[in-house]
Each structure stands twice: as C-alpha cells, then as structure tokens.
C-alpha cells in the first residue's frame, strides 16, 4: 500500500505494508540510516524519532499510525535550533564511544529541552533513562544536556 509521510520537512512516498514499523521505512525504504535498530520492542531508544515534536520509538510505530504527523529524524536535527545545539555540544564534549545510541539520545534530549529548557537532574534522568548507552557514556550525555540548558539560561538572562 502506498503511504505519503513528511520526513524532515519533505514529503516521501513509500509502498509498503501498513504495519511496517517507521524505523524500517526510514532505514531501508528511505535510506535514512541515522535511526538505529537495537531491541525492536521499544526498550532501548536507539530508534527514537519525533512525531510532531514528540519522541517516539520508531521500531514499534507502525507506518499506518504516522498519518500527517511531521516525522523528524537525527538527519533533520541540523534544522532544529535545540537539536543543532545538542549535536554541537555532543561533539565538543566528545560524548560518544561506539556512537550507535547517540542519535536516539539526541532525539530524546531535543524533545526534553524543547519542552523544558531548564530541566533539573531528576527530569533529565527521567527522560533519558529510556535510552540505553551500552558504552555507558551517560556522564557526558548528562553534561551535554546540562550545558545546553545553561546556554539557554545565559541567553534568557541577556
């Protein structure tokens, strides 16, 4: 069946089954490889993308449920003011080890800071605990999120 979805502000049409998870549409049909497959049941967060700005696990999101929602992936984060800052900080703080989970981490962090520019530690932990980093780069992930939140604060004070 043919579906047209909006991915990173571009309309894309794919001809696949209705229950094909969004992750596989993105990766194998649209060749956007940034969203990763980790567990297949929404436990690890490696596949995290945004639907209308809300972080979802694309491995358990059937294509038919996407409808007209705007899909944003890590490939589109350079155009997102918060996502772009997080990408920059992630590089500056040298967050990754293997790097496999980091796209999902940034997608979750982008939603968090977009909705709550000044999260406290508990709020950061609560949101980010859905994203597994098998290399355990959590210390730096936390630091990068806090730094972006502080940049927000500095901008507001000015």
């Amino acid at each position: 069946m043919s579906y047209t979805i909006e991915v990173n502000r571009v309309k894309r049409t794919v001809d696949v089954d209705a229950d094909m998870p969004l992750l596989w549409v993105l990766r194998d049909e649209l060749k956007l490889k940034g969203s990763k497959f980790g567990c297949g049941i929404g436990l690890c967060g490696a596949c995290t993308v945004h639907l209308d700005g809300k972080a979802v696990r694309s491995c358990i999101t059937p294509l038919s449920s996407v409808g007209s929602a705007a899909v944003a992936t890590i490939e589109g984060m350079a155009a997102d003011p918060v996502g772009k800052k997080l990408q920059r900080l992630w590089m500056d703080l040298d967050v990754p080890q293997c790097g496999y989970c980091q796209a999902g981490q940034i997608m979750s962090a982008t939603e968090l800071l977009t909705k709550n520019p000044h999260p406290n530690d508990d709020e950061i932990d609560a949101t980010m605990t859905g994203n597994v980093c098998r290399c355990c780069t959590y210390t730096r992930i936390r630091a990068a999120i806090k730094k972006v939140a502080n940049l927000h604060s500095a901008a507001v004070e000015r």
Partner: protein
Amino acid sequence: MRTIIAKRARASTTGAVTSFSSSRRIFLKASVTAGGGLLLQAVLPPLVQVAIADALAAPADQAASLNAYIRIAPDGIVTIMSKNPEIGQGIKTMLPMVIAEELDVEWKNVRVEQAPLDEASFGRQFAGGSMATPLNYDPLRRVGAAARQMLVLAAAQSWSVAPAECRTGAGVVYHQKSGRSLSFGALAAKAATLPVPDLATVPLKDPKTFEIIGQPIPGVDNEKIMTGRPLFGIDVDVPDMLYAVFQKCPVFGGSLMSANVDTLKALPGVHDAFIVKASEANPNSDPQGLSDGVAIVAKSWWIADKAREKLEIQWDEGPVAAQSSVGFAHDAATLSQQVPVSYLRRDGDVAASLKHAAHVVEAGYSYPFLSHIALEPQNCTAHFQDGRAVLWAPTQNPGPGAKLVAATLGIPESDVTVKMTRIGGGFGRRLRNDFMAEAAWISKQVGAPVKLLWNRQDDMRHDFYRPAGFHFFKAGLDDDGKVVAFSNHFVTFGRNGKLADSAAMDANEFPAQLVPNLEYGQSVMELGVPTGPLRAPRSNALGFVFQSFIDELADRAGKDPVEFRLALLGERRVLVNSTGKPDALRDFDTGRMRDVLLEVAEISDWSDRHALPKRTGKGVAFYFSHLGYFAEVVQASVASSGEIKLDHVWIVADVGRQIVNPSGAENQVQGAALDGLGAALGQAITIDRGRVVQSNFDSVRPLRMKQVPPVEVRFLTTDHPPTGLGEPALPPVIPALCNAIFAATGKRIRSLPIDAEALRI
C-alpha cells in the same frame, strides 16, 4: 622475532623505494601515490614483547607485527590510515594522533581513513585485550618520525643544506639560516623517492614537546555520528541488496531435521527461504562458524524477520538440551565437597596451616553467564560473485573472519575481501565471526548481495557467553590478622577435555606469592554452551570473587580494608609470574598497586567513611589486568526495600607514562566501570534445557541514566610504557560495589547479579 616483508605494492603506487634493515628487522617502503603524495608503509617487529591475551585465539607471532600508512597530498592534507576496527574504544582517533605527533603536522590537517583488512601490509588488525596502545604506541611514533625525517631530507636536498640545519613545525620544513621554508605538501613527492630511515634508530620527539599526544581530541567520526550519517555495519547499503534473517536452533548444537521453507517462499516479499546444514558448508565445520538453521531472504529486513512467525522447524536438540544453570550450580556444589581434579598451584601446606590458624574463613562464590549485548545486533553484508566474496563486516577480528568465510565457502582466502565498518559495540562478542560465515553463505545461495541482520533475541540467544563460574574459598588468619593460608577451588567449564573459552584462571591470580600456604585447585564441568571473551575476560569475574573474599578476610581480621590490602601487598617489588620468565601481562608490581590504592583512599575520603549515614557504605577493591593497575572505591546506599543506589565512584589508574588522548581515556574508564556496575546489578544469562531463557533488555538490564553516579577518574603518571584502557577499569568496580553493600548492610554479596530482595529489611 621474524622478518616480515610486505608482500605486495599498492596498485595505485609507482616509483617505490625500499630499504631494509636486516639487523633491526624493519621493512619500510615509500612510494609516490597516483595523486603525487607520499605513501609510507611500514611493517614493524614486536617492539613490545607482550603476549596477546588468549582471548584472541590467534598465534602470538602474528599479533605482534604492525603497520601504518601515511599519505600526504600536495595541499598538505595528511591522510592517516587507522588499521584496527573501531568499536568505541577510540582507536580511530588515538592511533592516528600518535603518527601525526611525530610527523609534526597540525591535527586539523589530518584526515583519518579506516584501513581495509590487509594484514600483509598492516600486521594483525584486531580490537581486543586492550592491546592497541602497548602494541602500537612506540612503533607508530616511529612511523611518523621516519616520514618527518624523509620530508626534512627532501627539503635539505632542495636547498643544498645539511638536514641538521632544518627543523619542522606544523607541516612545514624550515631552514632558519636562509629563512626558507617548504610545506610537507610541496615536499611529499620528492620525499617519497628518498631512502627510508631505520625505524629503530629514527629520532623521536621529546615527550615534553608533544602537541597532539596528551591533548583531549574528540573522535574523528563524531560529526558523522551526531548527524546520522551511515557508518556502522547495519548501515551498509549495496545496490540490489536483499535482506536476510537466519533462524538457528534455540538449543546449542541442535541440528535441523525439517522446516516448512516452501510456505515461507510463498509469502509476499520473501525472495527465498532455505535450510542451511552446517555439515554441507564445510566438512571441518568450525564451531565458531555456520550452524544449522533456516535462512529467510526478503526485499526488506522487516519482511524477512516477520516471516519467522510462520516458520516451523523440527530440531534434533541434541545432548546440550540436558544442561541447565540450576544443574551446573548443583554439580558445582557437589564438586566443591571433593578434592579438586587438578591444581594450578600449590605453595606450602594449606591443610596444616589451616589447622593452626586463629581464624578460618570459608565462603562460596558464583557468577552467571553473561551476554555482550552490544547495541548494534550482529550483522554483516556479503556479496558472493564469480567465486569471490566481499564482506562489509562489523568485526573486531577481521583476519580470522576472512579465514572462516574462505573455509565456509571453500574458496581461497585471497578471494575474500573484508571491509571494516564502524562497530556499534564490541565487548569481545565480535572477536567471533559466525555472522560473517552466515552472510557469506546466504549470499552465495541466493546469488545476490545480502545484508544479514540478527534481531535482539538472536543476538542474546546466540552469543559466546562469559562463562559462569564457582569458587570455593577457605583461608586462615593468625592472631594478628595476617593471612597464613589461602585456598580456592575453582569449578569451571570445559568441553572434550579442554577448558571452555575464557573459563581459565591464571596460576598467578592475586594473592599468589603473597601467602606462604596457598593453593588454587580446579574442577571442570562439561558445557555445551558457547563461551568467549567479554570485556576484561576472566578478570571481570575473578576480580569480583577474589577482592570480595579478601574483604571478608579483612573484616574477620578486624582491619581496615585498605590497610589489610596494603599489608597483603607488602613491600614494593615485582612478583614475577610462576613460569619465571618475564611476562608483562602476569608480572605483578606491588608498588604500583600500593600507589593507586593509597591515592584512591585519599580522593574518596576513605578514612571518613564511618561518618556516612546508615545503610550507606564505601567499598574498595583493586585489580591488575591488561597491564593496567586500578584501585576503585564505590559508595552505595541500600534502601529498606533493598534497592541499591550508586552514590559515587572513585577510580585511580596507573597505565604508564602517557595518556595519549585524555578525553577518550576518561570516557573508557568511566564507561568500563559503569559497564561493570550494570552487569553486577542487572545481568545474567540463564540456561534452561540447553537454551537461553532471556531474550531482550527487559530481562537482561543494561545500566540506565537514572542509575548512573558521578565517576571520578585520576591517572597516576609513572615511568612505565603506556598501556590500554578498554578493559582494566572494569574488574575492580564490581567487588568495590559488593564491599560497599557489605559496609552498608552487613550482608555479603557472594553471587551475581546482586539480589536486591535479599537486602530488604
């Protein structure tokens, strides 16, 4: 040592100049690339005489010869090949830093490329054993320095001046007297025609002048990672590629009787489905290679994976179906009552000294099988065509992978090409290459490029597991609390008369040589579950049992756990391993361990620990592995529910005189410690009727953000060769946590993972 000569020239090179120093057994070759740049290729002898960890299952003589490439373009951009697989250990950044430093170029002008598998040119290419630093640090400095010297000579000849009058800086050769200068880019073509200096005597920089080594340099792939560019094995995309899954027997070693492949073939989108019999692939079927199963090949991976729902397979489960974790624990308990089958060492007279000991302490410890749970599931893309195979493989060990593929397909190894991708976590799992054999076989059967991808369940249920183990201790203390007798009966696993992979204990395990009456006995249970190295193989378990039991002894002796350990370590000296032959992996420097232990006590405010709140405690442990000396303190709090909160971790490490990349180093140490804590708190693989019970991250729980404490890392700089960091931070953190829980609750953790229920009050 042996002489190694590069077997073939690069296809794209012309005008090669070679030099060979027989006395030093170093061969170096320079040539001009098609683009006019300098290509420097070196094969080096084992300058660091260390044995490769047995985890690698490779001949030691292969593992010691190394190689690197430097390419300098006319515009001054330097391309450095990174020889080893990148699994997150930061090697793709760190090794090129070493070359760039001695070459004397600016890091911003360096581009790093992943080398393909080419062990004739590069020597052994693998990620394992924390060996990259000890094996490559000195040799790759020399590769960079030799290239710099050739560039200086080229400039000196151009100016008709003595090379000694020239100096370099930031990719430029200067002649101060005349005020002239030439860039490396301008000199590269000429330099490539000059004789290559002797690597063994080429002058190296004074480390005080280092500008790249010792700087925190971010990973070279960071931008691609953060913007979602394809990098990993799973991201490989080949034109006309099909997607495959491979269903194997849930019971290890089971064989396939029949399967409804015709039903599967009829499903929409399914390209093919067929039975694989390992015995047909290769008469000498490698237990680490192809197994029986059903391959489903489809136009998308999701269709292939979903088709498994319709799959019906009749298996002959075979003898391993009789094995289970419960049975192993029962058998181990029985064996513990008997005399060990063999002894790794027997010093003095343990039985006699126990009779006269003031205190005797006895305890049994155990730990479970563990899965590696790399976040990127096993995968490989293969294209078999016209008798040749090309593989895009996220493997830690591509050389043996190529051999395995060649054997599986029955083609010469020279017809197997392996392209290394970035890897979404290794942890030792990808030292085994079963997924490569499967992808190659499936591609050959369907006659098309195929990406094989395992799902999480496949990955967790078809691993080479960290072997479980059982340890039965008995020790005697004298009136002063000194250890006079120490005995350990290790009940481990084997198969067909050999110990299982990564199931061995070393005769030099601490406190060997420090207790006059000491014996390490061993008994072996038959195991059909595949095992293999997991990050800090053996040490990740032995650290837990030995450093926990030593804590029990400190407690019985009524001594401070740090003071007790210092007394056990005794004076500063090197305890040479039991073979009597120097072996850096086994010789134990008590002085280096004393220093990290004292330092970690200092930075963790160890002496103030009695002021901690109720049910909060600090625990200490140390461990020497992979050439690194680590002492760690964990502070943990235990709620009345039994829930464990990690408050803080302090780590002091001695890995020699130079931290190459402080950013990567800190990340590795923090990550390894947290990895160990995650395993101790939430991970076990249970075997039931020959199969793995767990299947995903709900039952094997990786550490998550909300559990993560601050982890402070300090490196002591000592006058020893630089050594690796991927592994040695892990072993001591588990006993440090368990000892902290004892300090907080009075309850000893003698079995992993930690049972929080048992800590409830």
